[in-house]
C-alpha cells in the first residue's frame, strides 16, 4: 500500500495554506492528521500532486469557551475533544463521538477539521455537529466565511467548502437551561465507522417537558441529516417512553438509506429509529 509520488509542503499559517491551494489549482490537498487522506492515497483512490501540511500550525488545536460559544480549532484531535472539560460540560455528545472514533492511535492523530472536511457519510462527528447547530468557520481566498452546519454536509464526501477553502474552526453555541446531549452508534465491525450514529441534544423546561430537541443522524444516508420530523413531534412533550418511541418512528423520514455488505437500507432505517430514541433517552438522563 504505497501512495503515488507527491510533493509535500508545510504551511506555517492557514493564510499561507490557502495561497498554496490557489497556486496548485486543484492538484493539492490539505493534510492535517492524515487519517482520512493518507489511507485513500495508499489505496491509490486519491493521488494529489501536492500535500499542504497544516498540521504544524500551532494555534489551531484549541478548545475554548467565550460568552456565546465553544470554539474548537480545526486541528483539535479527537483525543483533545474526547478529554476536554469544556466539551464535556457543554456539548457532551461531541465528546461521546470523539471517544468512539477509531482507536487510541487514530484519536491521537485525527483532527475534527480534517474529519468534517472529508465528510465520510459514516463519520461520527457530523451527527453531533448538526444536533448542536454548530457553525463551521472557514478561510478562503476571499477571507473568512461562516457556514451553518445544516448547510455544510452536502453529499457523500462533499461539503459546502469551496475549492480553496479550509476549515478553521467549529463553533458550538452555548445554551442555558437544563441541557443534555448524547451520541450513540452501532459500529460497523470492521471499520468502526457508524452503520448508524445518533446524536441528541435536549432541553427540558421546568415541568420536565422537552422544550427543544435536536437529533443528528450519521451513517445512514449520503450525508448526515437532522431527524426533523421526530424533533417536531417531541417538542413540548413529556418524555414518556411510548411518546419517544412513536416520535422516533419518523426519525428516518425523507432519507434514502445506504446499502452495502454491512447493512441493508431497511436495517439502517430501523437503527435510525432505535438509536434516535436511545440518544434522546440518554440525553434526557443527562439533562435531568
Amino acid at each position: 500500500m504505497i501512495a503515488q509520488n507527491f510533493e509535500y509542503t508545510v504551511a506555517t499559517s492557514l493564510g499561507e495554506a490557502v495561497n498554496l491551494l490557489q497556486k496548485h489549482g486543484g492538484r493539492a490537498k490539505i493534510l492535517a492528521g492524515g487519517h482520512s487522506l493518507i489511507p485513500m492515497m495508499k489505496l491509490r483512490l486519491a493521488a494529489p500532486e501536492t500535500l499542504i501540511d497544516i498540521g504544524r500550525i500551532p494555534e489551531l488545536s484549541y478548545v475554548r469557551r467565550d460568552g456565546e460559544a465553544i470554539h474548537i480549532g480545526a486541528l483539535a484531535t479527537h483525543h483533545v475533544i474526547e478529554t476536554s472539560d469544556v466539551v464535556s460540560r457543554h456539548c457532551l455528545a461531541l465528546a461521546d463521538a470523539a471517544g468512539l472514533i477509531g482507536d487510541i492511535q487514530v484519536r491521537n492523530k485525527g483532527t475534527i477539521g480534517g474529519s468534517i472536511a472529508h465528510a465520510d457519510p459514516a463519520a461520527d462527528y457530523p451527527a453531533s455537529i448538526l444536533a448542536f447547530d454548530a457553525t463551521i468557520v472557514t478561510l478562503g481566498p476571499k477571507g473568512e466565511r461562516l457556514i451553518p452546519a445544516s448547510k455544510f454536509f452536502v453529499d457523500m464526501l462533499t461539503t459546502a467548502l469551496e475549492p480553496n477553502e479550509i476549515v478553521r474552526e467549529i463553533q458550538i453555541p452555548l445554551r442555558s437551561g437544563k441541557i443534555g446531549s448524547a451520541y450513540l452508534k452501532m459500529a460497523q465491525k470492521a471499520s468502526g465507522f457508524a452503520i448508524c450514529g445518533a446524536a441528541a441534544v435536549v432541553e427540558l423546561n421546568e415541568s420536565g417537558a422537552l422544550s427543544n430537541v435536536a437529533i443528528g443522524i450519521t451513517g445512514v444516508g449520503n450525508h448526515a441529516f437532522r431527524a426533523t420530523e421526530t424533533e417536531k413531534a417531541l417538542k413540548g412533550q413529556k418524555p414518556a417512553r411510548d411518546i419517544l418511541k412513536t416520535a422516533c418512528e419518523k426519525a428516518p423520514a425523507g432519507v434514502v438509506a445506504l446499502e452495502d455488505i454491512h447493512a441493508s437500507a431497511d436495517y439502517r432505517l430501523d437503527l435510525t429509529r432505535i438509536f434516535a430514541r436511545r440518544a434522546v433517552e440518554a440525553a434526557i438522563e443527562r439533562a435531568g
Partner: protein
Amino acid sequence: MPKRYVGQAMKRKEDPRLVSGTSTYVDDVVLPGMLHMAVARSIHGHARIKGIDTSRAQRLPGVVAVVTGEEVAAHCGPLPCAASIPNMKNAQRQLLAVGKVRFVGEPVAAVVATDKYIARDAADLIEIDYEPLPAVVNPEKAMEPNSPRLYDEFSDNIAFNFGFESGNTEEAFKKADVIVKERFVNQRLAPLSMEPRGVVATYQMPDNELVVWASTQVPHLLRTQLAVMLNVPENRTRVIAPEVGGGFGAKIDVYAEDGLVGYLAKKTGRPVKWIENRRENIAATIHGRDQIDDVELALKKDGTILGMRVKAIADLGAFYSLFTPMIPTLTGLLAPGCYKVPALKFDLVGVLTNKMATDAYRGAGRPEATYMIERIMDVAARKLEMDPAEIRRKNFPQPDEFPFQTSGGVVYDSANYEAALDRALQLADYKALRRKQAELRSQGKYMGIGLSSYVEICAMGPSAAMPGGGWETGSVRIERTGKVTILTGASPHGQGQETTFAQIAADEFGLEPDDVVTIHGDTARIPSGIGTFGSRATAVGGTAMYFAVQDLKEKMKKIAAHLLETTPDKIEFGVGKLVVKGDSGRFMSFTDVVDVAYNAVKLPPGVEPGLDATRFFEPSNFTFPFGTHVCVVEIDEETGEPKITKYVAVDDCGNVINPLLVEGQVHGGLVQGIGQALHEEVVYDENGQLLTGTLMDYAVPRAHDFPEFELDRTITPSPVNPLGVKGVGEAGTIGSTPAVVNAVVDALSPFGITHIDMPLRSEKIWKILKGRKAS
C-alpha cells in the same frame, strides 16, 4: 528428580525481544544492492489475457526487470501441491498467469526496481489487456454442467469426489426413531496474520547459493520446493525463517511470490525483496473454510446416535495450493466428533471457483467437522426435548473404551469427555444460567446458552497420513561449557517452544531453563525438519528433542559411571550433577562430565567424544485433545446485536508444559473461532470481485468484543508420546465457533429458530426478531 520447571507458568524467553521491538522480521533484512519487487495482479475474477504491454513500466527510471507469465513458466516450475486424491483434476497454477486469470489478485506480471516506490509505480504502468469471462463464485452453481469452466482442459469444475462409509448407514437410518437434518455453511475466512508474507532472496557468486529469508512456518519444506521450482541444487539452497509474526496455517504454503523473488534474484544477480501489503494479504494469501455440509443424524428417541450422513461441498477456489485438496477430507475423519456414531457416510465434492485457493487455516478441516456435529447435536436435542448437555453425555465413549476406533476412520488416543463437560457446566453454573434464561424470557429478553463438546486431531501426524512426512527432528548438543543447544525442525512462530523446550530439557538434565537455547528456522543450522502446523511442534518436535536428550543422558551416565566406578543404571541426574543412586555423596558435577566428554582422555572404552545427538520422531498416531466450552449471549431485542456475556472453556490437551502458554493459545484460538461465528467473512460478488479487500470491510475481532474468558483444564495424558502432550494451538478455534452459534440459536429458540448461518451479524438476528413473534 522431581520436575522443577515443566508445568510451571514461566514467562516466555521469546518475549523480551518481541516487546522491545528488537527482533528481526523479513522486512528488517536489508542487503547491499537490494531490489524491490511489486506484482501486477488480476483485477478480474475470470478473464483471458489478450496481451501485456510492459514497455511503459520498463522505461520508468529505476526499473531493472519486468517479467510475465511465459518467461517465468519457461524457467520455473508451477506452484506445488503436496496433497493427492484419487482421480483428482490437476488444477496447478504457474507463478504468473499464462493465458487466463482465475481470481482477483492472481499475479500476472512482476517488476523489480531500485526502490519499492518505483516498483509499485511501475506495476501500475503494466498494461494488461483482458477479455473478461463469466465468473463462477458459488460452488453449487460451479458444479452445474452448463457452468462456465475455469479450466478449458477440464470437462467441468469438479476437482474431485471423495467419500467413505463405515458401518451401515442405510440400516441405521431405517431403524431411527428420529432423523434431523440441517445445512451448515462454514464461510470463507482470511487467516490475517499480523505480519503479512514477505520474502528476500539472494543468488550470488561465488557459490551461487540461493539464500531465502521468508516468513514461513516450514523452512525445510520451502527449501525443497524452491530448489525444485527454481532448479537450484537443494544443497545450495538455504531458507531462513526469521521472526515470523503469525501464520495460522497460511504460511505453510509455497506461494508464487516466493518463487518469483528467487527467480528474479537469479535473473538480476541482485538481492530482491517483496513484502506483502494487507490488500494482497486478503486477496492472494490462502483462505480458510468455505465448506457446505448437508448433515443428517439418525437417533433413537432416547438420544442415542445410530448414524450420520454428510454431503460436503468444499469450495477450493481457483487452484491447488500446498494442501488444498486434503483439508476438507479432514472433516470426514472428525465428523463423528466426540460421540459414538456407529455408522457414518461422508461424501465430499471439491469444486473449483473464481476465488483465491483455500488451504489450512487454524483448525483446517476440523472446525467444519466440529461445527456440523455440535450444531446437529443441538438440533437433535431440541427435537427430542433433551438438554443439550444430556444428549452429549449420552453418546460419549467412556474412558475405558480408549483407544477408541471411530467411524471417521481414526483411533482416538485417550479422553474423558464427561469430566470436561461436567467441569465446564460447574464452572459456568449451568443450572443457574438456565434459571436466569427462563426468567429473562418471561421479561421478553433473549439470552442463550451454547455448549460445544469437541475433540480434534493434533500432533500431525503419522507419516502415512501426511503428504511429505509427519515426523520431526530434534538435535541436542551440550556445549563444552555445559550450556545446552537444541536444534528443532519444528519452526515455531509464536507458540513459545524456545521456552517450553528449555523447561523440558532443564528438568531432564537438572539445569536451569536459562542454560538452554533453542534454535529453529534456518535450514543451514537445523539439519532437517518439517515445521510447525497442525498443533505438532511440542507433541512431535518436542518428542524428537526429548529422545535426543535421553540419548545424551545415557551417554553421560556411562561416562559418570566409569569415573565413579559403578554401572550406568546406578547413575541418576540431580540438580547440576550426576549422582550414584542411594549414595548422594558419590557424584560428579554436570560440567565435569561434560569436560570428560570433550577432553576425551578419561572416556570409557567404546564411548565417542562429544555430546551431540539427533533424533527423528515418527508418531504412531495423532493425538486427540478435547474439551467443552460454554458460551452465554444476550441479544439486544431491538437491534439484534449479540453480546457474549460469559465464556467458559475447559480444555484437555494432555500434559501441560507451561500453563501460561496453553492459556495464551486458548485465548487466541477462542478469539479466532468466535470471530468466525460473529463477524468474519470473505465476500466475493457474482463477478468474482473481492468486496472485503481491506480491514475496513473484513471484520477482525477485537479485545472489546469479548468478556473475560474463564478457563480451566482437565488432564488426560496422551499415550502417543512420552511427554503425554496433545497440542493446543487450534483447540480454541475448533471448540468455540459452535458454542457461540448454539448460544445464539438457543436465545432465539422461542421464535422457532433452529439454525442461523454464520457470521451472526446483528442484522440477521434483527430480521428474525422483526419477522416473528415469540411463541
